[in-house]
C-alpha cells in the first residue's frame, strides 16, 4: 500500500491543527480559538475556526464527534475534534518546510 501524501497546510490551518493536538480531548471550536488567541496573541474568529476545522475534516486530517449536552451551554452539545495520523504527518511536513527555508537565516532571524 502506498503511503498517503499529506495535503499542504496554510498558516491558519497549521495553527488550528496544532491547537487540536495540544488540547487533545478538549478540542472544541471555542477552546481551539481561545488557545490560538492566548498563545499567538492573534485574533481567531469563531466562524473562521469552525470553517477551517470543517475543511480540515473534509481533507481527512481531523475527525469530529459530538459530546454530551452540557448545562453550561444551555443544554447544547460540543463538537470535539481530534487529529488523525495524516494531520500529524502534515504538521511535521509543514514545520520541516519552515525549518528548511529558514536554515542559514539564523543570524538574521534571532532577536
Amino acid at each position, binding site marked *: 500500500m502506498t503511503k498517503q501524501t499529506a495535503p499542504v497546510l496554510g498558516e491558519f490551518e497549521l495553527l488550528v491543527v496544532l491547537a487540536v493536538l495540544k488540547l487533545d480531548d478538549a478540542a472544541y471550536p471555542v477552546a481551539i480559538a481561545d488557545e490560538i488567541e492566548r498563545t499567538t496573541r492573534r485574533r481567531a474568529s469563531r466562524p473562521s475556526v469552525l470553517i477551517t476545522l470543517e475543511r480540515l475534516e473534509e481533507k481527512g486530517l481531523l475527525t469530529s464527534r459530538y459530546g454530551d449536552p452540557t448545562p453550561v451551554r444551555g443544554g447544547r452539545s*460540543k463538537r470535539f475534534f481530534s487529529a488523525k495520523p495524516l494531520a500529524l504527518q502534515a504538521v511535521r511536513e509543514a514545520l520541516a518546510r519552515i525549518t528548511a527555508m529558514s536554515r542559514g537565516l539564523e543570524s538574521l532571524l534571532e532577536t
Partner: protein
Amino acid sequence: MRARVAPSVVTAWVLRRLRSRHEVDAALGDLSEELARLTDEGRPPRWPRLWLEIRIWRYVIAGLWNLVASLDSELRWAWRSARGRRISGLIQIVLITLAVGTGAVLFSAADAFVFNPSPYPNAVRLVVFQRDSPVGVVDSLRADEQRELSARSDLFSAWYTHSMGAPAEIAGMTALVRTQDVQPGLFEALGVVPQWGRPLVPGDEQPGRETVVLISADLARTLFADPAAAVGRTFETSTGAMRVVGVMPDGFRFPTALEKIWQAPLKAQFPPNIAAVAPGVSMKAIEHAVGSLANESASSGRSAGPVRAVKMSDAEKDPRSFTNSGAFNASSGPRLFSMLFGAALCLALIICLNVAGLELASALERTRVSVVLTALGATRGALIRSALFETTILTAGGAILGMGLATWGTSVLTAALPAALGAALTNPIDLDLRTAAFTAGLTLMTAILTSIPVVWYASRADLANGLRRGAQTATATRTQQSARYGLITVQVALSVALLVIAALFVQSYVTRFDAKGLEGANLATLGISDLRGSPESAADLDRTIQAQLDGHPAVQSVSRTSRLLPGGFRGGSAQHLWLQGATSPAGLAAPATFEVDADFFQTVGLRLLGGRLPRADDADDQIAVDEALARRFWPDGKAVGARFSLGSETGNSPGSGPSQNRLRDASAGTFEIIGVVSHVELEAREFPRGGPIFAVYRLLPRHLPPSMGLSAGGRPTWIILNYMVRLSRPEMLDEVATLVRSTAQGATVSTGLMDDHYTEVFGDTRIAAGMTGGFGVVALLVAMLGLYGVAAFFVAGRTREIGIRIALGAHRGNVQRLVLRSTVRPVIVGTVAGSALALVVSRWIGGQLFGVVPQDPTTYALVVTTMLVTAVVATWWPARRASTLDPALTLRAE
C-alpha cells in the same frame, strides 16, 4: 445568569437547510458559551442578538464560499468555454441584452400606469359618485340624488365639491396653467395639507382684490425659485392677481397632475360630489343606499345610467383618473399596455428560443469535448453544472447590458410620451424596485429557457457513441434535428404574429395621422378666452384681430369658428338620427357643430366631396356634413339634398343635447344637407355606439358673433373668439401670438399647431405603433438570425454528405436547393401558424385600430412576403458556401 441565545426564525431556517441538526446545535452552543464568557469578563456585546446574527451569517457565508470553492474547476471550465464561443457568445449576449432591455422598458412603462399610487392618504374614507354615459364613465350626481344622500347624516359625515376653474395665463409663462376650484376642507379630508403656508379656509372664497390660492411645489419653484418663499407672495395672471397662502407638497395632484393652482370657488356652482364616509360605516352600507337610489331612478324612467358609489382610492387607481388631459384614450389604456407588455414578452420568448437554438447547436458541436471529459471521469452532473454556469455567465452579461439599454430606453420613451400624459404620471417611467424585480425574473426565465436544451442534451445524449462519429459527421440525431426545427418554427410563428400586429398599428397610426381630414402642416389654432366687456366690444376686437392677421405677412388665411379643431365633442351626447319620413331612428350619431365663416373650409383644407359649400345666404337649416355621417346613413351616396333630424329614440326633439353642442334649430326640426366635406378626426376615441364623431358645419356671416355663454338675465358670462390660421411657416406662430396678445390685452390667448394637437390626440396610437414597430423589426432580425443558424448548422453537419453529392455530380443548384429546403418547412409551418395567431390576437386589438381591419389581407400578404424574403436571405449565405465546397477537401478531412 447565563445568556440564552437563539437565532432569528429566518437565520435558523437557513442554517437548518445548510447544516445538520448536530452541527447547528454545537455551533450555537459555541456562540452561547462565548457570549457567556464575554459577559463574565464584563464586556458583553451591546446588542447580543445582532452580535449572534452577524456571527452566524459569517459562518453561513463562509460555508457557502467553501461550496463555491469546491465548484472552482467547473466554474473555470464554464468561463473558458464561454470565452471560447467568440461570435456566437457575443450574439447570445446581444440577444439577451435585447430581451432584458425591451422587457424592462415595457414593464417600467406599464408599471408607471398601473402603479400610479394615490397621493391621498385618506382616500379610502371618501367616496365619489359615478355613472355610465355614452361617452364613458363620468363623475356626476344629480341635484335630487345629492339632496337625498346628503340627508343621510348616518352615512356621510361631510360633503365637498370641486370643479374645473378657468385656466390661468401667468405673466412670463408660455403654457396655460390649469386651475381647480376646491372647497376649503377638501384637501384636509384627503389627508394632505400644504407643506408650506396654510390650507384654504372658509372665508377665502370671499371676493376681494386678490384671489387666495394654493399652488403646486413645481409652480412655486418656477415662479419664486423657493417654495418656502412663495407663501404670502402675489403673482399676476390673466384673471387677476393671485396671492399664495400655501404650497402643496411635491408629487401632490388633484384631480390630475395638470392642475397647478387651487382656489376656493366664489360660489358653489355645482352640487357637492365627494362625500366623507361617517366613522364606523361600511362601504357596503353606502353601496346599498346608493344602489336603492339607482333603482328608484330607473323605475321612474330616467334614461341616464344608474349612479354608483366608488371609493376615491379605487377611482384614483382607475387609469381614467389621469385621463382628463384628453391625451390618453381612457378605455383603451389598460388594454394597450397589456398588449404592449404581451408584445415585449413575445419578443423575449423569441429571443429565448433563438438562444436556446444556439445553445443546442453549441452543445452538439461540443459533443467530442463532452465525450472526452466524460472519459476522463467527469460526471454527468458536472457536465450539466458546467453548461449551466456557462449559460449563467452569458445571461448575466446580457442582463447587465440590458439594464443599460433599459436606462436609455426609458429616457427615450419618457421623451416620446405626449406632454400631457407624461405630466399626469406621478410614478415616473424609470427603473425602480419593481422593474428591477421584474428584470430579475425575466433574466431567470431567459436563463432557464435557454438552458433547457443543454440540460436535456447532456442528460440524455449518448455521449459514448459520440466518440465513434467523426467531427464532420457528428450530425444531429432525428430528435435533435426536430427540436431545432421546432424552436425555429415557433420563432417564425411568433415573429409573424408580432410583425402583423406591428404592421397593423403602424398602418393605423399613419392612416390616422394622414387621414385626419385636414392639412395639419402650418395650420395653427388661436383661441382668445376670458374676454371682458360686452359682445359688441368682442365683435370689435374680432374685426381688429382679423384685419391684423389678414395683413400679417406670415398668415396665408384666417377663419373664425365657434370651436377649435380637433375636439369639439367633449361633453356632448349621442342622439338618434331620423331620416325624413322614417318611422324609427336610423341609428345613433354623435354630432359636433361648428359654426364657421366662409373661409373656414379653405383655411383648414377640407375637401368638398359632393354638393356645394355653405354660402352666406343659406337658410338656417342648410348645413354641410362630414363624409363619415354621409357614408353611414346614406351608403348609396345620395346624402346631398337629404333631410334629417336629431332627437330622442321616441320622437323628435332637436336641440336636446347640452347647450354648447346642439344644433340650434327649433323652427324646422330638420336639416338639409347641401354639401359633404372630407371627414376630420375630432377625437382619439370613437363614440361607443354611434360610430365616429362627425362634424356638422353651418355657415354664419364673415363676422359671426362671438361664442358666449349667457346667464339667466341675458348677460354674457363668458366670451371666446376662436380662429384657425394657415401660416406660411410654423415658426411664425410665436410672432402671431405676440401680436394678438398685444391687441387682446387682459384676455387669455392660447395657440397651438395642428400637427402637435394631433400628435397629442393620437398619442396612444403613436406609442403603440412605435413600440410594436420596433419590436417587430427586432423580432424579424432575431428570426433571421435563427434561420441562418439552422441553415449554417445544416451545412456544418452535412459537409461530408454534400462533398459526396458534389463528387457524384450534383450541380450547384442542387446543393443550394438542398440547403434552402432545410429551412422551408419551419418557415412555412411557422408562417401559417403565426398568421393564425395574429388573426386571433388582432381581433382583440381591433378596437385600437383605425382605417385598417384586423384581417387586412394586404398586411398579412406583406408580412408573409417579408418573412419569406428574410428566410431566403438568411439561408442564402450558407447555401452558397455549401455549393462552393471542394469535394476533395471535404472527403479528405476526417
